């Protein structure tokens, strides 16, 4: 039975390699052929994938209702921007009050700046976690929401560091398609490895039954803080990418409602499914653009409405309600994409042995 297993492992590996190659070629084709507007949407998809995955880690896999994501994005965005802008750019931005001297001359390449934005957000997430992870459910949600708003207020008022409500303009357009999707892929791979590791099992056990988890020797508090810090780190990275994608940031963008946009994606995709978050992030981001016409004047043939800005969001809110009422598990529930699952529903030729065979040959079975 070992043989069939080795074969199926290598089949899956092959399929994964082919799919990756196809993906890279696809990115090339997109890069070469599409106009700038479409390209921007593709990049935004990648950033939203990272955001959805990071929120899903804490809400879906660890079972903690956190609403602080907008704040961590903001921290990441500002950190990255301030580290990556040139001194000249900074001087041009800070017209009301000059930037603090120690920040003026820092000028890092994009990669270290991006990592720093993750680290700063992660550190703050860790600190908040140590305080807030003693709270439960709605209290935790309120505390993290409050934290997110505090961040925004600080960003608005720390004039010599953040340029206050004027925001930062003219950031280098670093977030290319390769950066955006490269980061999304790295984050996805990291999260898959994390969730399938012993730590991922510990996270899920907390979600499923906190007391039993603690009784089985899991340091629940420590694990929650860890998960929260990782999630904040990833939100910070996404924020950094977003800053250099938009090239203009200001505190209003990190209003707490931004968190709900991401929550929408996570819930639609399936709370506790990496695959679901990825698909939903892409689908929602794309349809946000495709449905842009809803905000403008609508021609029904017999009547023409004047434009109703925000009608798009009504559509998504209605969709969210329908999902919450009729399909709470979202698109994927807690299941994940796998080649074997595709084979099971008949989209790939079936393997000879059932997937529950007992032959364990190496790490593919380690799940």
């Amino acid at each position: 039975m070992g043989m069939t297993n080795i074969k199926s492992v290598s089949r899956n590996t092959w399929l994964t390699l082919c799919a990756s190659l196809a993906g890279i070629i696809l990115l090339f084709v997109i890069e070469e052929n599409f106009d700038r507007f479409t390209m921007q949407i593709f990049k935004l998809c990648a950033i939203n994938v990272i955001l959805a995955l990071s929120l899903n880690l804490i809400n879906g896999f660890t079972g903690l209702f956190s609403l602080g994501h907008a704040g961590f994005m903001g921290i990441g965005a500002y950190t990255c921007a301030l580290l990556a802008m040139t001194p000249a750019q900074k001087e041009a931005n800070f017209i009301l009050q000059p930037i603090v001297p120690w920040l003026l001359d820092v000028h890092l390449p994009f990669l270290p700046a991006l990592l720093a934005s993750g680290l700063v957000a992660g550190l703050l997430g860790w600190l908040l976690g140590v305080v807030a992870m003693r709270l439960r459910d709605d209290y935790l949600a309120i505390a993290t929401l409050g934290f997110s708003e505090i961040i925004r207020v600080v960003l608005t008022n720390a004039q010599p560091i953040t340029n206050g409500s004027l925001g930062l303009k003219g950031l280098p357009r670093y977030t290319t398609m390769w950066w955006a999707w490269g980061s999304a892929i790295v984050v996805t791979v990291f999260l898959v490895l994390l969730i399938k590791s012993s730590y991922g099992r510990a996270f899920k056990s907390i979600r499923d039954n906190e007391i039993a988890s603690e009784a089985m020797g899991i340091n629940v508090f420590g694990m929650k803080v860890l998960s929260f810090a990782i999630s904040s780190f990833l939100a910070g990275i996404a924020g950094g990418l977003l800053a250099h994608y938009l090239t203009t940031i200001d505190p209003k963008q990190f209003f707490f409602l931004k968190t709900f946009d991401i929550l929408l994606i996570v819930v639609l995709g399936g709370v506790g499914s990496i695959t679901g978050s990825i698909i939903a992030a892409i689908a929602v981001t794309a349809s946000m653009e495709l449905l842009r016409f809803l905000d403008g004047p609508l021609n029904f043939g017999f009547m023409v409405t004047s434009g109703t800005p925000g009608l798009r969001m009504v559509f998504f809110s209605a969709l969210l309600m329908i999902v919450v009422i009729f399909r709470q598990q979202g698109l994927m529930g807690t299941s994940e994409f796998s080649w074997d699952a595709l084979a099971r529903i008949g989209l790939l030729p079936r393997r000879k042995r059932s997937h529950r065979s007992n032959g364990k040959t190496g790490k593919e079975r380690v799940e």
Partner: protein
Amino acid sequence: MMGALLETLDVHKQFGGLVAVSAFSIRVESGEIVGLIGPNGAGKTTSFNLITGVYKPTRGRVLFDGRDITRLALHDITRLGIARTFQNIRLFKDMSVLENVLVAQHMRMGTNLFEATLRLPSYLRKEKHIHEQARALLAEVGLDALEGDKATSLPYGKQRRLEIARALATEPKLLFLDEPAAGMNPQESAELMDFILKIRDQFQLTIVLIEHHMQVVMGICKRMYVLDYGVTIAHGTPEEIQKDPKVIEAYLGAP
């Protein structure tokens, strides 16, 4: 004098105005199987919760292996070697049977986030080892063929056995079983008795169990404590307990 493996000294627990457990003092020697019985609401589960660290006593001390564990966190108590099952089954419901056991092994696996996410060879070795152990435990409780199933899809009796396997995976010295035979027929209860004796010897365990099936308690416990309204009303061998007028009164009402 040899120290007992577990000793509780005058433990009390009060929930608001309700005294759930009072003056609870028991002694359990290494290798024993001790029973804890009493009518519904007597405070049996609460005393388990007090010893294992789910609740903190209002008063009194708990000593394990000569060490004061009264104020320790639940997971630290587990690390010292106390494991338990739950009366109202608490499995990790969205995880597989195998994963339920693997979670309990995380504590003794000695891994770190870095080696685990990077899948370093050292991690893969540990992971392989705990998988082997987990499967062996599942085989022990007869669930090896169901390792991929969702834990809560199992029938009730099997869920109870999975809880025992999961508790054993923490490598305890002292095991608390809260009504392991609940919902079992006499045939299954008899099998359970043999099973408890077997794991006691195989894993060198000391066991304390709560049970309403008198046949089970009387069959495997050399000693037992009887609780009623939080008070320990009797303590002794099964024969002594059966004859004790206070116990008869507690179970049957006034004589």
